[in-house]
Structure formats: structure tokens, C-alpha cells
């Protein structure tokens, strides 16, 4: 296709021009399109009816437009989806110094979209990763106090073999403590342990006026609750005190099931939640019909000392995804093949065994930089929670809609969530959480809009940490808590000095110009 395009042949789609404009942020795909005009660069054929009508034209030189990092010359900042803006991190060991006057801080940049990107008008964001000291650990209570840049991979390396583990872990260990708090991450044990915010004893935050505030569930409760899951918008998180869990051994006792379709899957998920503290499942969301939503359900608990091997889990080797990995490698055919293989790799209906904690919690961490797999145009993750009130069929309806819209996803993860946590904007609530990775294509905005309309109808909401495409008006409809959040934010930060690209895009914050900052 590229070859034909270079020769000036336009086989499939005439140039559709700019295909997505958000109210304040524009995603400009032209970087990719410009190289082979008139054609989608990668991936499957685009049907004419999928094209997005041309909206107001994107100024080619809009410096604030979100775009694939591959198209940004010079320094860039991006989320995990490799879509970003020009900008740089301000790094330093002294977080208390570098956050002075700063408008946003970020950790390891694992949020998928623009949560950790500077607001339009700004190009600098504080990077916390060098502030990674452990300030204290109480071996009796498990209370860990550390600087916000401490990474979970480091925490696991130090504490796992000593019999301590974070009470809640996200699906990657390349996150910082501060980032875990800001996203109020949830894990496979959400139905029993809640989000990480439930286990935070205290936070030290630099708020917009420069003061450093210590807050906890008892002191400055509003600030504390808004910071839990507040996407770093209430202030710079400097220090975190987290109550760790004592574990019987550092190994996982895993039971996994191969499940033939979505209905059986939902039943199995509900049943295993009663039995296991940790559940999560992958489903094949490409196959339709009677195979719709077939998948593998993983359930686990910490192994008892009797079951576990006597040695500590070895450090696992990692491979790195090459930077030149071509995006076309990930197409409808290879995705289907992968889903087929992954499903049938689990040949027995049920498997039981002891597994490495990394294998259980962080399967994707085995490949460093796996986000490169999606090629130069990047990808996004769509994660929503559908409440129990939407009924048992909600997940099926979601998958049917997805397959109808052709939103083929390489990876789709489903798990059930427990009750809503204390974070004002915390994502999970009782119901079913569905997460899918979606390579960015011309129709991605339309696909997200369609899925959002469905989620609004069902009374669910999306996860800010994963989002790149949701429109402000849609978000306001699905999360009325935003009003309370903004009120608390304004109480501490009347001018909304602390802002991100996401808060400008979704919460209606005005873009930041250098004079007001």
C-alpha cells in the first residue's frame, strides 16, 4: 500500500483530511498521513463509511496538538500510547525543590493518554523518578514511607523476598508510588482490597500556592480524597505512606480456566471472586458468534509456605521491543492468529499450579517497550466499568457493539470490581471493568465516541488514566463527581495553576499561557 501511495495511487480512501478535532486539543494524524497521502498508513482497510467527515481544519503548526511521538521533532513527552506533545521533563533528586512553581508532575509515564502531559502553553513537567528514596519501613506494621518517585519494580525487588507486597498492584510494575496514588490504581484483588487509595496512610503534597501539606484520611480529608485518583491535579505528591501486606510466600498459587464464551465467562468470574482474592481474565474480542467473548480466566492467591518453592522468585529476563517494529505487523490477520493461539495454548479446561508473581501480575512487563508494537501511530486503551445495575448482559452487549464497530483489539481484559473507593474521581465501582488496547486509526475517535455513548447509557464510566479520546461533554455525563472534584481543586488552587493536557481537554480548564503561570 505504501509503495502504491508513493507512486501517487490512492487505492482505498481519498484524502479525508483532518479527522478528529476535540474542543481544545487536536489530534493530528497528518504526520503519518502526510508520508503516504490519502492512505491510512497501517492496518486494515478502511471502509468509506468509516471515514470521519472533515471538521474545522487543524492548523498545521498548532504546537499543542497531540500527535504520535514519531512525528515530533526534538524533545517530546508522551503517554504510554506513544501520543504526545513537544516538551521535556524537569528531573532532580530534590522533589521539594523542583516542584516549586511547577504546574504538573509525572512519574514513569505509564498513563496511556495525556494525563501526564503539560497543558497547552507549557512544555515542562516535573519528573519524579529520581526522587526514589525509602524514608522508613516498619517491619511490625508494614507501613512504608517513601518519596513519590519510588517505582513499584524497586519496591517488589526489595520487599517481595522479605514477605511484604503492595496491597494493590496495577498490571505493570513500571509505575511510581505517586502515580499509583494519582490514578488510584486497582488490581486483580479489587473485589476484596479496593483501590490503592484505601491503603494510603498519609500523603505529603505541594499544593499550588507552594505550601507543603500533609494530609491523611483524618487530616485535610478533602484534599486527601481528591488526590486519591485525582490525576495529580490537586498538587505535586512528594511523599507517600503506604500500608503493605504481609504475604505467606512470594509465589502465586494460580488456577486458570479456559472459558468458551462471554456468558460462561461472566458466571465463572462471579463464582471465582467468591473463592479467590485475585481474579482477572483475558478475552478474545475478535471472534464473534458463539465464540463471542471466549477467554482465559486467571485466579490466584499467595501460595502457602508449604506449597511454594523454597527459593525466592528469580529475576526474570526481559526482552525489548525494537524501535523499528513496523505497525503493519499488527493487523486483523495477526491479531486473529494471536487470539486463536493464546486461547488454545490453554488446552485443558482447568490448570492449577504455582507461578512466578511477575507472570501472574505483570505478564506484559516481560517485553520492555511493548507499546512500540502498535507502530508509529500509537495506540490507546479504552477502559470502562459497567455497573452491576446495568445487568448481567452488559458485557455481552459491549462486546457485540465492539465487534460490530470493527474495533478489533489485540488485548482485552475483563475483571469485576468491588464498591467505589474514597477517591473523589477514583475509577472503579461495583460492576465489570473492560479494558481494550486499540491501535490508533482514522476511525478511533468515532469508535471511542460510540463506546462512550453506550457506557453513558449503561450508567458506567471510563478510566482517565487510559483515556486519549473522550470528549469533555461525554465525560461530564458519565462522571457527575467531577463537580465536587473541581470544587475541592479550586479551594486549594483558585486559578487552577496545576493543570494537565487532560484536564484542559476534559475538565474544561483554560489553556495555560506562560504569563499566568
Amino acid at each position, binding site marked *: 500500500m505504501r509503495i502504491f501511495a508513493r507512486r501517487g495511487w490512492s487505492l482505498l480512501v481519498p484524502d479525508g483530511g483532518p479527522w478528529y478535532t476535540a474542543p481544545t486539543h487536536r489530534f493530528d494524524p497528518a504526520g503519518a498521513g502526510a508520508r503516504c497521502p490519502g492512505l491510512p498508513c497501517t492496518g486494515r482497510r478502511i471502509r468509506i463509511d468509516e471515514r470521519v467527515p472533515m471538521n474545522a481544519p487543524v492548523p498545521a503548526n498548532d504546537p499543542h496538538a497531540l500527535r504520535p511521538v514519531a512525528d515530533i521533532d526534538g*524533545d517530546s513527552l508522551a503517554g504510554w500510547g506513544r501520543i504526545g506533545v513537544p516538551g521535556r*521533563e*524537569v*528531573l*532532580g*533528586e*530534590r522533589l521539594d525543590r523542583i516542584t516549586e512553581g511547577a504546574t504538573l508532575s509525572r512519574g514513569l509515564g505509564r498513563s496511556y493518554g495525556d494525563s501526564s502531559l503539560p497543558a497547552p502553553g507549557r512544555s515542562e513537567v516535573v519528573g519524579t523518578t*529520581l526522587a526514589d*528514596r*525509602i*524514608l*522508613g*519501613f516498619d517491619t511490625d506494621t508494614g507501613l512504608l514511607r517513601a*518519596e513519590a518517585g519510588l517505582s513499584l519494580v524497586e519496591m517488589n525487588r*526489595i520487599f517481595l523476598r*522479605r514477605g511484604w507486597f503492595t496491597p494493590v498492584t496495577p498490571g505493570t510494575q513500571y509505575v511510581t508510588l505517586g502515580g499509583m496514588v494519582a490514578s488510584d490504581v486497582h488490581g486483580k484483588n479489587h473485589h476484596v482490597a479496593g483501590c490503592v487509595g484505601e491503603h494510603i496512610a498519609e500523603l505529603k503534597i505541594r499544593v499550588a500556592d507552594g505550601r507543603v501539606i500533609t494530609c491523611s484520611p483524618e487530616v485535610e480529608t478533602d484534599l486527601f480524597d481528591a488526590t486519591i485518583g485525582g490525576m495529580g491535579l490537586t498538587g505535586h505528591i512528594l511523599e507517600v505512606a503506604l500500608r503493605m501486606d504481609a504475604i505467606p510466600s512470594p509465589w502465586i498459587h494460580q488456577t486458570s480456566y479456559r472459558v468458551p464464551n462471554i456468558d460462561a465467562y461472566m458466571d465463572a468470574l462471579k463464582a471465582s471472586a467468591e473463592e479467590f482474592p485475585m481474579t482477572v481474565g483475558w478475552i478474545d474480542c475478535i471472534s464473534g458468534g458463539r465464540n463471542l467473548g471466549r477467554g482465559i480466566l486467571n485466579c490466584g492467591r499467595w501460595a502457602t509456605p508449604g506449597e511454594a518453592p523454597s527459593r525466592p522468585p528469580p529475576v526474570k529476563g526481559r526482552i525489548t521491543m525494537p524501535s523499528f517494529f513496523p505497525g503493519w505487523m499488527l493487523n486483523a490477520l495477526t491479531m486473529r492468529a494471536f487470539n486463536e493461539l493464546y486461547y488454545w495454548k490453554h488446552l485443558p479446561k482447568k490448570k492449577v499450579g504455582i507461578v512466578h508473581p511477575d507472570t501472574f501480575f505483570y505478564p506484559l512487563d516481560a517485553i520492555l517497550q511493548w507499546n512500540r508494537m502498535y507502530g508509529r501511530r500509537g495506540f490507546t486503551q479504552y477502559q470502562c466499568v459497567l455497573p452491576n445495575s446495568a445487568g448481567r448482559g452488559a458485557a455481552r452487549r459491549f462486546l457485540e457493539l465492539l465487534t460490530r464497530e470493527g474495533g478489533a483489539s489485540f488485548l482485552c481484559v475483563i475483571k469485576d470490581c468491588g464498591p467505589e473507593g474514597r477517591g473523589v474521581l477514583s475509577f472503579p465501582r461495583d460492576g465489570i471493568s473492560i479494558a481494550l488496547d486499540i491501535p490508533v486509526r482514522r476511525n478511533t475517535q468515532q469508535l471511542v465516541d460510540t463506546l462512550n455513548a453506550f457506557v453513558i447509557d449503561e450508567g458506567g464510566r471510563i478510566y482517565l488514566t487510559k483515556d486519549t479520546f473522550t470528549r469533555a461533554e461525554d465525560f461530564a455525563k458519565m462522571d457527575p463527581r467531577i463537580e465536587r472534584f473541581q470544587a475541592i481543586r479550586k479551594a486549594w488552587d483558585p486559578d487552577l495553576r496545576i493543570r494537565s493536557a487532560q484536564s484542559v481537554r476534559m475538565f474544561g480548564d483554560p489553556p495555560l499561557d506562560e504569563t499566568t503561570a
Partner: protein
Amino acid sequence: MNVVFLGATRGMGRSLSRLMAERGDTLYLLGRTPDQLEASAADLRVRSGSDANVGFGHCDLEDPSGFAGALDDAFAALGRVDAIVVTAGLFDVQEALEADLEWARKVVTVNLPNTIVFCEEARTRLMAQGGGTLCVFSSVAGDRGRKPVGIYGASKAGLTHYLDSLDFRYRAEGLKTVLVKPGFVKTGMTANLKPPPFAGEPDQVARIVLKAIDRGTPCVYAPGIWRWIMLTIQHLPRFMMRRAGF
């Protein structure tokens, strides 16, 4: 191993002190700011996994009059000292140093004369107890005068010179010097600079340096590739150095 550490709160010193603490070495930290020392000492204590106390004391490279007292305290706290590590130093880019000569004077003073005085105090104490290792961080910037690191490089060149001579003069008497020449390493010190090719990570440098300390290697480049990069640069003719940007 009992180690006295000047500069463990940041950058490569932080990484190296963590490696040492995790393998069970006893550390005593010297530095400028008490709260930073305390935080780093707590960090090392937790990482070491033992209740071993990580001591710390005040020592400012800008104030040579305090060196003797600080080292005496450290020796008193540890008993025998096997190694003294100096990673502290000042850095700024050439433009900033040229623009503010008082700042330039301070950088050079801290990096060269004051560090030499500190090393002399350390050397006499190590030799008085029969020997030991003195590990000092210089820089590849001292290997040849270059456009972007003229003033800073000059201070490090002097330090390199001095440590080489210590090795020649005292190795037979039991003093092992380990001269470390880090290339570009991504720490807080260099956070404002664009990393060149072959930039290293602090943890990677720390592993190389720890091995060198254990073996008593007199001179080590970290990451190792910088030995060959600097060898090349040292042999480039003048007309090329005038044109090159590095």
C-alpha cells in the same frame, strides 16, 4: 566492608551506596544538608534489610576546615575504614560558568583544591591504619579540553592527575586508589542536558565502580565504552576539535 561516603545523597553516589548497603557493607555518610543525609541514611537502612545503623555527619566540600573533624567522626563511628568514596562535586555547563565567574571559581575550588585537601586528609588516615581504598569520581571531561566542558573539565583534569600520582606513589604502601571517569550519566546533575549517544544509567555505573573498588582497579571508565570514545577524542587533531561540537 566499612565505607565512608561523601556524596551518597544523589546521583551515582546514591546508586553506589545502595549497592553497598544491599550487600551488607556498613556505611557512614558525609554531606552538606542534614535532612538529605537523614533521608538517604533511612533509605540505605531499609534497603540493607538489617538493623545496622547507617551513620552520617556534616561535611561540606566548600569548607576544608571541617574535613579533618568529619573524617575523625567517621573513623570513630566505624572503627576500621576499608574504603572512602568521594562522588561529590559541582557541575555546570560552560556557558553558565563563563557568564558567572564567581560561580566558576567556586566549581573549580570545590572540584580541585578542596577535593585534594579532602583526599589528603583521607589518605593519611587510611595509611595510618595500614591501608585502604580511596575511590574518587573524576570525569571523562578531564581527559581532553573540549568546547562544552572547558572550565569543569580543567578541574577534573587536575583531579585525574592528582589521583594518578597517588596511585604511583602510595600503592606499594597499601593505599589503593580507584579513579572513576564516568561518561555522560543520566542523573540529576545532567538532567538539563540532552543525553548524547552512549549515555549511561547511574545503576550501571555503580555496578562497574563497585567491581573496581573490590578489585582495586586504579582507573575505570563507566560505562566502559567511554574508554574508547575518549581514546579517540584524545587523538583527534586540533583542527577537528576546533570544528567539532563535543
